[in-house]
């Protein structure tokens, strides 16, 4: 029985919210929309501020200069990041990479970089190595040298100090099997690294096309290992969980601004919000949002408790929040009427971030199929 945040967690939320109100404002974000370099520069400045607040080290162990906190905490923080439409590669760096470097078998030289993550010195953008390039990549991660990879589209590439190259695959096929994981870090400024700026669907994140041609790996910054598949899934799952929580924050902010708007805006002599159709649409949005909140919080609790159903809970959270976020932010546009689809309104920013978040992962279809398999194979408890 611990759905409600502890006193410390509540404090984290409050301080995050009030800090972000000052740090990441719409007017500043908007200045970067037509100029990626400006947005990247802002993301970089923002990074320094949040590093100072200790957030970059949220899940980094204390011995590496971090706070050593868990999923419940990074989930709470991501809700706030979502509310603020935070920009920058926070999730990849402070959740995914910080988790990967703590996995069993990670060489000390690589693990030592946790300190740089915590201090804010390192900002990582993610290149997921696809099946065609995976085998040679695993080989490279085994012995170092140079790495070449075809063009990848990488969110926040322009802000990164390094790229995190990552590949995983299932070694034994059973559900509780073994997985292989290969990863390495490549310096943004290394030879052979090209980053070309692209336009992002979500204007509050930049996007880059990254190509690596014989880019050198620093000694000690590569690593390939076999681990229980569940451990790998857990670390990758942390990123998914963070996205879910961010989605909650986005939808929550969109909905509360919409409620405020429909209370004020009048048509036919009364507030738009007094029309039953608008009420019911937003009531349904509220239900969807609160259900997602429950699902995402439980997924975090289950993750921190090492519960047997933690991954199933994550699938539920992901499937619910993705659909919810897109739907709620879309309904918020609708409830705004004509204003809702102007550039000037913030509604489209929430809507675009929601789609962006839903598109980063394996997608809602994958999560639903995974729940369905669990049911068909009798792996759920009723």
């Amino acid at each position: 029985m611990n759905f409600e945040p502890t006193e410390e967690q509540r404090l984290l939320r409050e301080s995050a919210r009030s800090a972000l109100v000052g740090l990441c404002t719409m007017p500043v974000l908007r200045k970067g929309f037509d100029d990626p370099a400006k947005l990247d520069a802002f993301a970089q400045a923002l990074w320094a501020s949040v590093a100072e607040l200790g957030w970059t080290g949220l899940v980094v162990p204390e011995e590496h200069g971090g706070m050593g906190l868990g999923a419940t905490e990074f989930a709470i923080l991501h809700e706030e990041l979502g509310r603020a439409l935070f920009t920058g590669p926070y999730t990849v760096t402070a959740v995914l990479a910080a988790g990967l470097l703590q996995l069993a078998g990670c060489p000390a030289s690589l693990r030592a970089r946790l300190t740089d993550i915590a201090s804010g010195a390192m900002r990582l953008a993610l290149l997921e190595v696809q099946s065609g390039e995976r085998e040679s990549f695993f080989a490279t991660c085994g012995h170092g040298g140079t790495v070449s990879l075809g063009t990848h589209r990488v969110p926040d590439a322009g802000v990164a100090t390094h790229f995190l190259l990552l590949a995983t695959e299932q070694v034994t096929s059973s559900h509780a099997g073994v997985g292989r994981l290969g990863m390495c870090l490549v310096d943004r400024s290394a030879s052979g690294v090209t980053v070309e700026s692209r336009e992002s669907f979500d204007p509050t994140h930049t996007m880059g096309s990254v190509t690596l041609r014989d880019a050198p790996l620093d000694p000690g910054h590569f690593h390939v290992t076999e681990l229980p598949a569940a451990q790998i899934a857990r670390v990758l799952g942390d990123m998914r969980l963070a996205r879910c929580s961010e989605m909650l924050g986005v939808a929550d902010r969109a909905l509360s601004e919409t409620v405020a708007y429909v209370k004020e805006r009048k048509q036919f002599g009364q507030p738009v919000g007094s029309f039953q159709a608008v009420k019911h649409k937003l009531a349904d949005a509220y239900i969807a949002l609160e259900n997602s909140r429950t699902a995402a919080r439980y997924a975090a609790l289950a993750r921190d408790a090492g519960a047997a159903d933690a991954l199933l809970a994550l699938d539920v959270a992901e499937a619910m929040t993705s659909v919810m976020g897109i739907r709620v932010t879309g309904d918020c546009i609708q409830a705004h009427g004509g204003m809702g689809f102007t550039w000037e309104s913030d509604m489209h920013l929430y809507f675009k971030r929601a789609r962006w978040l839903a598109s980063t992962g394996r997608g809602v279809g994958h999560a639903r199929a995974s729940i369905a398999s669990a049911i068909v194979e009798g792996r759920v408890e009723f």
Partner: protein
Amino acid sequence: MNPSFSAAEEAFRQEARIWLIESLRSVGYDAMSWRERLDTDFCMRWERHMGASGWTGLSWPKEYGGRALPLVQQVIFQEEYARAEAPILWNSMAHGILAPTLMYYGTESQKKRFLPGILSNEERWCQGYSEPGAGSDLAALATRAERISDARGDRYVVTGQKVWTSVAQFAHWCFILVRSDPKSSRHKGISFLLLDMKSRGVTVRPLRQMTGESEFNEVFFDGVEVPVENRVGEEGQGWEIAMTAANHERGTFFVPMLVSMQSELRDLVKLARTTPSDGRPAIEDPLIQDKLAQLYMDVSVMRLNSYRTLETLMQGRPPGPEASFTKLFWSEVRQRMLELAMDILGPQAMLAWTDPQAAAGGRWQREHLWSRAITILAATSEIHRNIIAERGLGMPR
């Protein structure tokens, strides 16, 4: 998906579970069919047995014979009760609504007179709220209570009609909302009375519903006398009392329904495994699987929501629109779940639930039909969406 409980809580769960298993076994429950388990006489006997065994009044203060258990343990008992698929509790209106109302608003003598009968389930109660002209709009109620004082005493004479009154045909008493001030309208001038169903002038007429059964009744009051001492609270305080009462159970009322729905989903998955569709088990159809996945998500999150609500209650924070939220979501998900059951049954759905050959004893067809009522009873989905918008989001009325 289960949050964790303390060791003491788990021990209590064990105690409750064992008592339920043994008691149910002793009445031959395991061997009874789904339909035998619905039998009214059996259910009411079981209910009295619960009273006699000290498993009622878990939330009541000790001074009224209750066990004064913490909220978590009450919920645990309700979970175990639902998980054991134990009989329907016909006297639940008395426990859920009337008893807390009496404890708060009742006089000492009312408490003394009525609480023990509820605790033991020897006295069953029905709720006289809805009227033909006052459904969603309860404040439009028209049943009159004229006050008369003469040599025979100080009393109300009640005339009017109630409807959708469940258990009225088995009830000893009825708690009823009446308009005691004939000149009043809407929320004012309403009083809350305790009315003896054996009184002269009470007529109960069963109302057949679309399942073919008659669980509800129309109840007619033709000059029924109610002594003034059977009024709860002040004259004209009825609306306030009714609204307060509706909040009493907010936290735990729905727990058994949510747990039951988990069992129902489990059984639906079984149905999908065993029912052929186009020559293969229905569960092999990816579209059926996807619908089951959605239901699993909904049912899981609903259960988790109830824990969230419980925590809010335990921290003494003001409740939001949780009661409306839970009722609305539960009723709509359950309706959808039972539609899926009908889809899975396919041509087998063409048999009435009452036919002895109906699949699974007719359970799915009957519950499917019943599920059409749950989005209407206890306020329609439309009313609950209004409440959520107004109370949850603060939108204008």
